[in-house]
Every structure is written in structure tokens, then in C-alpha cells.
């Protein structure tokens, strides 16, 4: 008994210390406050960000320029005019003079330095929260000097992710159909460029007319349709290995291929005797299954990101409208009921929206809607806008716009319709498709 008592007595200081610690913790708890207010309104706007030229000469300035353009094009950021910067000699070794940046209302600031050492380009950067006066991110990126643009895209992605919480989409590429020549000699070649229009190059030689290229969402693999006098074929093309293969021979014309989200299947349309239906092929077994059998034109299948459903376009109601069905073809339901003709549906990578082309009122539009057809939002209008493609994070759409003069150009728009602009690719192009993030 005495032993037990002495044991408890020996615990007394520990218990007292714990009680004191608890009271201190409670006193310091962030939940305690003398004044408490609720803020139920805000001033939501693109985030003002300062992107001064990186140290290191021309390439430093170029990298900053690419980052600034990337962030601006996303619609999430408003890069501040460098002419208004007060601190000119920013570098990564010294903390910025925050009052100078607060004065121009830069909420975030990037400082960076570029060096070339041993044939490798190194870009070190820091992302600053100007008002909290602290570093949010600091990284160093290396590449061979000719890949400075990819360095800029990598940095853009890191900044975008840090400040929004979403993955970026800047270190990606876009495949598209590059058009050249006039009537009678028009070529439509498969081409690829960076997401900002830089570094364009051809992937096919122009002997076939290329249509509807689509990226896999999981790898650097493309599927596309090639039209030759003898018929159409669907190809798979791996950009990393260079391997190119046909999906197989089909009776009738095959078109509009698109990968399933896991990259294991391709859905496509087959036209026979005026009737188009949707099929899906397992790429491992090469077994194909028919998903629709309506005596109408069913085409443009696009999987939901979970792979469970497919949105497609059908004129079974008399005019082209959008329908959603199970990935096995079950239970098709029409989702568009407003005036107009809806085509080229594409499910967003987040699953939140379906992008589409709409023809109404003598104009073509790019728009988005919820997968049940609600909340339709028209983002663009012109003589001919069509073929939207999602950036891998679901923030931006690229599409083709043709003026009354006939030349088709690539454009991009963010999903709020705030930033609509032509891509810098100087040639004629259509049918864009976005890659996943590069490794």
C-alpha cells in the first residue's frame, strides 16, 4: 500500500507538468481570440505576380518571358508590367526588398538566376509571398542549354501548383494537323509543338491526310486517322519509341479514335453504308466491341476520366446532339436540349465538364457544360470554332478557328473565357490534342 502511495506521489510532478503544459497549449491555441470576424466577400481576380528577368543574360530574360506568358495564358495570374518594377537588381542570393514589391501590389514574386556550368543550364528560382515576406518555393532545374524553354515550363508548373494547389500544364506538348498548300494540293500532316506554340515539327510526311489526332492521357502515345485513296486507317504512334502501328483492318471507314483514360482501349467510329456506330478495341487483346447500333451517325466518343462512361455525338434525334452512355454502350441518354447543333464532345480530365462545339445563330462556339448537360457556358464565338482539346489539368482548352478567308488557326481559351488568344504557331492548324505532363 505504502509502495503504491509513494508511486503515485512520484508521479505528481509529472501530472502537474502535464496540466501546466495543457493550459499553456490551450492559451496558445489559434482558436482563442479576443475579436472574431467573418469575411464572406472577397475580391476574386487573377493573382498579380511579378516575374522579373532571371539573372544570367538573355536566356534569363527569355525564361522569365516564357514563364510570364504561361501564367498569363492560364487566366489565373496577371503578370505585372516589368516597367513598373522598383527593385531592378533582384537575385536569388539576396532577399527581395518587399516594400518595393508591395508598392506595386505584387502578391507573388519570382527571382531566378541562370548559369551554364559544364554544358548544363541551371536555373535556380525562388517564389516569394510578398506580403507575408516569406519564400514559398525554391528549386533548381537543369537541362541542356537548348532546352531552356522546357526549363521555363517546369518552373511555370511549379509556381502554378504552389499558388493554386492544382497541377500545372505547361510542360506539355500538343499534336495537331498542320495544313499547307492551296486547293488541290492541300496537305494535312501530323505535327507537334510545345503547348505555347514553340518548337513545331512534323511527324508525318504528307502522303496521307491526317485527321483527329488524340493523345493518351497516360503516356506519350498518339492515335490518329490517316486517309488515303484506298481508305482510312487508325494508327497508334509512340513518340518515345517511334513505334507506329495500325489498329487493324475494318470494313468501312474508321475515324474519330480516342484513348480510354488508362490508355488500354481506343474508342472509334466505323461508317458502313451511311450508318456510323461507335466501337471500342482493347489494345492488348485487339478484341473490338460495338457500343452503339442506332441507324444514325454516332461518333466522337470520349471517355469520362474514371473510364465508366462515354460521351458521344449522335443525330438520332434529328440533329447532332450529345449523349452519355456507359462505357459498355449501356443506357445512352441525351444531355443537350438547347437550341443548336452539338458536336465534338470531350470529357475534361477532372470529370467536371464536357467541352463541345456548338453551332447556333449562324456562329460556331466552343463551350463547356456539366456532364448532365447543365450549366452550359459558351466561351467563344466566331465564323468557325471547333474541336476543343483539354489541357491535362482541365483549365484551358485549345481549338481551331477558321476565318471567312479559310485559314484555320489554333487558339486557346481558359474555361472561364477570360483569356482567349491565338497560339503563336504561325501556320494553319486544326484538331489539337494535348499531351499529359512530360516527365
Amino acid at each position, binding site marked *: 500500500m505504502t509502495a503504491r502511495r509513494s508511486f503515485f506521489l512520484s508521479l505528481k510532478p509529472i501530472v502537474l507538468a502535464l496540466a501546466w503544459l495543457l493550459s499553456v497549449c490551450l492559451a496558445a491555441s489559434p482558436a482563442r481570440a479576443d475579436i472574431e470576424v467573418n469575411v464572406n466577400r472577397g475580391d476574386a481576380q487573377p493573382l498579380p505576380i511579378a516575374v522579373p528577368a532571371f539573372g544570367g543574360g538573355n536566356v534569363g530574360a527569355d525564361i522569365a518571358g516564357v514563364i510570364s506568358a504561361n501564367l498569363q495564358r492560364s487566366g489565373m495570374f496577371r503578370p505585372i508590367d516589368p516597367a513598373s518594377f522598383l527593385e531592378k537588381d533582384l537575385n536569388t542570393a539576396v532577399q527581395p526588398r518587399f516594400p518595393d514589391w508591395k508598392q506595386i501590389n505584387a502578391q507573388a514574386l519570382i527571382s531566378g538566376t541562370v548559369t551554364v556550368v559544364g554544358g548544363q543550364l541551371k536555373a535556380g528560382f525562388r517564389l516569394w509571398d510578398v506580403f507575408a515576406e516569406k519564400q514559398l518555393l525554391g528549386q533548381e532545374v537543369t537541362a541542356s542549354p537548348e532546352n531552356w524553354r522546357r526549363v521555363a515550363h517546369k518552373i511555370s508548373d511549379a509556381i502554378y501548383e504552389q499558388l493554386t494547389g492544382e497541377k500545372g500544364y505547361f510542360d506539355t506538348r500538343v499534336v495537331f494537323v498542320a495544313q499547307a498548300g492551296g486547293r488541290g494540293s492541300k496537305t494535312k500532316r501530323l505535327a507537334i509543338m510545345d503547348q505555347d506554340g514553340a518548337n513545331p515539327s512534323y511527324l508525318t510526311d504528307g502522303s496521307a491526310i491526317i485527321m483527329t489526332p488524340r493523345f493518351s492521357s497516360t503516356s506519350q502515345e498518339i492515335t490518329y486517322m490517316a486517309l488515303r485513296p484506298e481508305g482510312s486507317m487508325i494508327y497508334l504512334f509512340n513518340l*518515345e519509341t*517511334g513505334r507506329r502501328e495500325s489498329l487493324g483492318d475494318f470494313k468501312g471507314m474508321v475515324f474519330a479514335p480516342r484513348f480510354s483514360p488508362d490508355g488500354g482501349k481506343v474508342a472509334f467510329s466505323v461508317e458502313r453504308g451511311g450508318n456510323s456506330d461507335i466501337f471500342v478495341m482493347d489494345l492488348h487483346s485487339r478484341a473490338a466491341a460495338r457500343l452503339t447500333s442506332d441507324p444514325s451517325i454516332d461518333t466522337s466518343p470520349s471517355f469520362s476520366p474514371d473510364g465508366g462512361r462515354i460521351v458521344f455525338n449522335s443525330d438520332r434525334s434529328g440533329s447532332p446532339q450529345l449523349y452519355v452512355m456507359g462505357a459498355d454502350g449501356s443506357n445512352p441518354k441525351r444531355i443537350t436540349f438547347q437550341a443548336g447543333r452539338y458536336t465534338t464532345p470531350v470529357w475534361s480530365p477532372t470529370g467536371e465538364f464536357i467541352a463541345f462545339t456548338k453551332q447556333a445563330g449562324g456562329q460556331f462556339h466552343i463551350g463547356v457544360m456539366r456532364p448532365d448537360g447543365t450549366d452550359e457556358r459558351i466561351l467563344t464565338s466566331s465564323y468557325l470554332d471547333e474541336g476543343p482539346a483539354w489541357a491535362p489539368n482541365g483549365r484551358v482548352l485549345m481549338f481551331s478557328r477558321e476565318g471567312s478567308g479559310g485559314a484555320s488557326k489554333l487558339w486557346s481559351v481558359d474555361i472561364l473565357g477570360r483569356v482567349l488568344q491565338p497560339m503563336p504557331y504561325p501556320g494553319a492548324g486544326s484538331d489539337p490534342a494535348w499531351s499529359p505532363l512530360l516527365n
Partner: protein
Amino acid sequence: MIQRETSPALVGSVLLHGLAAAALLVSWNFTRDLKVGAVVPVTIVANAPETNLAPAVQAPEVQTAQADEPVPTAPVEATPPAPQPKAQPTPKVAPPPPTPKPAPVPLKPAPVAAKPAPPAKPEKSLDLDALAASLSKSAKPSSAAKGSARPETALQARPAMGTAEQAAAFSGLTQELQRRWNPNCDVEGGRDVLVRVTFTIGAGGQVVGDVASQIRSAQTPVSQAAAQRAVRAVYAASPFRSLPREFYGERVAVNFNAREACTP
């Protein structure tokens, strides 16, 4: 008439720069056909902690002085930056270990003697009707574009002050925060974020010490970025000059509600 001689060094320099620029233009504007498989690796080789920095060179002007605040002992920040180790590590050095932050730069000396002794605080419930009535009289229309009209309510009262006065005082603080808060309503999940930010108001109405944030909705990268935005709004709105001095030295909690703010 003044004649300027052109130095040969200058001519040489201009020529060299021109040649370098031409070489860069030629090499960078050249569009190469993509070699299939030519995805060149770009790697992030290091993460740079904030601690390997020299302090900022002070801007010439000093921050606005608080009239009634005792001047703190001379801050050390005015000294020019001491030579520091280079910011970026040498090639392929492993990222520096995430050591606990050893207070990188002494930026904000906390005010020591300025805090008025807080009065005893018998908690007293607030008359919300009177508060609402006084708000409608005294509050200026907000410049904020979004959100439905909700009472931005002070939940705890200071007995020495009338309810209407308190409402007006808190209304000014709230409006300043609304003006500075830039919620990201456009990202997925951005409209569901609730963040509570707590901080202490110093003797000059400015934020002193740490600003803590607590996410009261789902913990996601989006809500973490949103919490940073809420904290930024507090720093940007500081000093809270509209708040009467009786509240200086107090602990403030602000509930930032994106669900309301992002509702058109």
C-alpha cells in the same frame, strides 16, 4: 561644340554583343524537326531553403512610423548584406536537409512595451440587432464585387465600448480584409474552402508575430494554397488603422469563407 570620341573598346564591345545576339538568334529561332523520342530530360535537382539567403538591401524609405509607438531598438536589418554562401548548391548536390528554420532574417522585431494591458474581459453576448442596425448606418459600401450580404459579426464584445461602436470598428477591419482577400474561386474545390486565420494586432495596429491559419474544410493542396491567400490578405490589410486603439494588442480570428465569397 563638343566632340565625343568613340573609344575602340566601346566599338569592340558593341560588335561583340551584336555578334553574340546574332548567334543566339540563329541558334534559338531554328526550328528543328523533332527527333522521335527526343523528350530531353529536365530535372529538378535541388530544393533551395529560404535560409541560405542574405538579407534584403533595405529600401531607402523606412516604413511609416506609428505615432504613439515606442521606437524599437535599432533593427539590424539596415546593415548591408553580409557576404553569404551562394544561394544555389553546386551541381547535383543533394537537397539540403530540411533543418528547422533558424530564423533566417531578423525582419520584424516584435514590439515589446507597446502592448496595452488588456482589460479584464468578462464575456458578454452581443446584441446582434443593434449591431445590424448600426452596421447599416455606419458601414460604407464595400468595393468587393462578390458575395451575398452577410453580417460580418464580431462574436465577442468588449464591455467598455458600445455595441454600435464595436460594430463600426469591426466593420472597418472586415472591409479592409474583404478588399485584400483574393479567393481562388476558379480551381476545383476552391469554392468550398473555409480558413480561420488568427493573429495579434500590435501597438500600432499592425500584425505582430506569426499569422496562423487553420483549414476548416477538406485538407487539399487547393485549400492549402487558399490558406496562403487568406494569410496574405491579413498581411496586406495590416496595419488596421480603422480599428480603435482599445483593440490593439488583441488576438484576432478571421473566418474566410470562400463558399460565400465565390457565390455570385
